[in-house]
């Protein structure tokens, strides 16, 4: 038996033994997701236990080095773990912007001290992070950001305002782009970390069209940030942010396709039997979905082999988010008048409609579709003046 076969066998055995039955059913709603953090209220003992056994083994971040709280698995092992978890229906033990976003940036740009300090906390789900990039005046255009950190010797004093900070009202710490040099528009930005309980930090949830408020406006009023809480070089925060955005786009682009995306036409076969035009639209959509799934596989294969164009994640992000928006338009159409319901129990409090509206942000957050197309034009197609 090869090493990988052994690993698979052991993994299956471990999952069988350690994953509580309740954690093998799909999460029903946002509130079933384990986000961790200082103030997190576990929904059940099973949820808490599932986080703890994974954290102990380093399997909340299976591919991170063990010294930083990870599982130390190689890519092949990581893939096997994911496959088996998917097969058994195991929930992700810990969802976290720390894992998805800050972690990779720290691994790339952090000092050894920072890695040893922050990464294990992330891995164990002790600290919940949020991201502070966008500002009211700068959506796609991050270069124009205004939040300013004034140099006070051993610390900065930060003033300004961020917007679209996900769950800032629930987060413990923030990773944040702050202007540290007003002269150099393109470079004078640094990547700072600080505690959301610091004096001067306030948050205000933004009500969205879906009726939910996953994002906040976040205000900084003379917030003190010690000098050792910078990631990467002073005034080179842009490098960290770009790396992270690229990573985020990879993640988003990979996200929708790792799981099986079933046929939409088959899911609504009774509806399409009576509606030949919808059937045609769904057939076209199923074709596009199958094609995009193949693209996702090719993309991930290339990514792992470090073969693809470095700007390819932008293409994936563009195509994947537009596809997902189309999917939800079709789901709403198939649902007809019942999918319009907004509060009824039968509609699970308007889950379909709220999810549909939520998808409209897919092509805005993490770089708009228009920005993606600009990047493809410039970096891949090398069109002039792009």
């Amino acid at each position, binding site marked *: 038996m090869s090493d990988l076969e052994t690993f698979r066998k052991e993994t299956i055995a471990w999952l069988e033994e350690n994953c509580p039955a309740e954690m093998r059913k799909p999460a029903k709603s946002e509130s079933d997701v384990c986000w961790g953090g200082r103030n997190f209220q576990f929904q059940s003992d099973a949820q808490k236990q599932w986080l703890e056994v994974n954290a102990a083994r380093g399997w909340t971040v299976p591919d991170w080095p063990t010294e930083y709280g990870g599982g130390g698995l190689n890519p092949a092992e990581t893939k096997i773990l994911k496959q088996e978890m998917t097969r058994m229906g195991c929930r992700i033990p810990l969802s976290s912007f720390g894992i998805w976003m800050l972690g990779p940036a720290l691994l790339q740009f952090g000092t050894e001290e920072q890695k040893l300090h922050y990464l294990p906390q992330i891995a164990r789900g002790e600290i919940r992070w949020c991201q502070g990039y*966008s500002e009211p*005046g*700068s*959506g*796609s*255009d991050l*270069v*124009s950001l205004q939040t300013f950190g004034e140099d006070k010797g051993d610390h900065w004093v930060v003033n300004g305002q961020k*917007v*679209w900070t996900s769950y800032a009202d629930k987060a413990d710490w923030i990773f944040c782009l702050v202007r540290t040099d007003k002269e150099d528009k393109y470079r004078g930005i640094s990547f700072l970390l600080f505690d959301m309980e610091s004096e001067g930090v306030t948050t205000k949830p*933004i*009500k*969205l*069209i879906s*009726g939910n408020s996953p994002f906040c406006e976040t205000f900084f009023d003379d917030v003190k940030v010690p000098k050792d809480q910078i990631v990467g070089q002073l005034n080179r925060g842009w490098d960290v942010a770009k790396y992270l955005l690229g990573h985020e786009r990879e993640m988003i682009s990979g996200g929708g396709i790792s799981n099986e995306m079933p046929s939409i036409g088959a899911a609504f076969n009774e*509806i399409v039997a*009576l*509606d*030949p*035009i*919808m059937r045609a*639209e769904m057939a076209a959509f199923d074709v596009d979905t199958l094609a995009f799934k193949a693209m996702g596989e090719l993309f991930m294969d290339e990514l792992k082999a470090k073969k693809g164009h470095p700007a390819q994640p932008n293409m994936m992000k563009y195509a994947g988010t537009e596809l997902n*928006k189309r999917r939800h*338009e079709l789901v*709403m*159409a198939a*649902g*007809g*008048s*019942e*999918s*319009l*319901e*907004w*509060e*009824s129990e*039968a*509609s699970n409090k*308007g889950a379909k*409609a709220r999810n*549909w*509206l939520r998808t*409209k*942000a897919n*092509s*805005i*957050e993490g770089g*708009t*579709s*228009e920005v993606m*197309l600009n990047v493809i034009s410039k970096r891949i197609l090398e069109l002039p003046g792009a």
Partner: protein
Amino acid sequence: MPLFYDEDQSMLEDSAAEFMKTEAPVAHLREFRDKNCPDGFSHRLWEQFGEMGFNGIMASEDEGGLGMGLKEAGIIMKEIGKNLAPSPFLTTAVAGVEALNNGSKALRDRYLPGIIEGKTVLSLAIDESSKHRPEAIAMEAKRSGNGFQLNGKKQFVIHGISSDMMIVAARTAGSAGDKDGLTLFAVEKETKGMEMDAVRLVDSSVAAHVAFNNVELTADAVIGEVDQGQEVLDRLLRAGRVASAAEMVGVGTGAMKQTLAYLKERKQFGQLIGEFQGLQHRAAHLYSEMEIADAIVRKAAEAVDAGVESAELLVSAAKAKVGVTSNLAVREGVQMHGGVGMTDEYDIGLYMKRDRGLSEFFGDSRYHANRVAQLYGY
């Protein structure tokens, strides 16, 4: 007749535009939504509609109305759409009155005065599944003594909960799909045996699921002739389809206007975003499609008003075209607004929600494209 608005129609347009802007701008919808109004619209606004004379637009002059047609009703619907004004105008003053116009004088005498005054609200109980499919109406209306007994279920009955009278389509003979055997009934509110489950919809309007359990009606509740309801229903549907299409032209136009304004004010990368050719071309394409959608809605209204043979085809083409187009307008609208387009604070999301609701009302673009194919014989 030219397809542009003549002098009288332009005056009507101006007065409807001015009225909606003053009395029922988007803020009015927000107010009624935020206070969780159980009816989903303001009864006071409905009276004001009456005071403006709008509600009698399809009623004959003899009976206190304006004796106008769908083209004029469409003018008002467009202004309603632009402002997202919540009102029972579509179900009551357009589709409802069109049905009454094809029923007995007695029913008209009973309901028209209240409608014209803005006191009476009508609702339409047609759909029996989540997709509009009136050709499959199966609800049963058994003869019972001199009258009828209704049993079955209806859904997507907009304003059902607040209506004084509900127009119910049911089968008095034959089975789903038969041309004969359909009858329309005027069912008074609080008739015994009706159960309603009100549901708030994404666009803040309120629809009802209605169950009929041995609902007894007298013979004078019949609108038109027993077993011959198909034609009255067809008329009602034509009116409702054109008018809802006109409202959607308004919704799309309103969304487009908000978006164009935003393109002229929002800066990114040191430029107004409206300077980017990528967005300009999409905006210009959208403009082009909206103009075309408006034209077919006018044409369909004119055709129904004139009673020409191709009216049925044009009506379905109108609802199909505008369904696709106003959907494009709200999608482009939210996307071009970027992050703020996702917030409840900006109005563009409300246009998207209203568009979704209207797209299902009286059949969506797919239903009507299929109908165009069927009417063309393929």
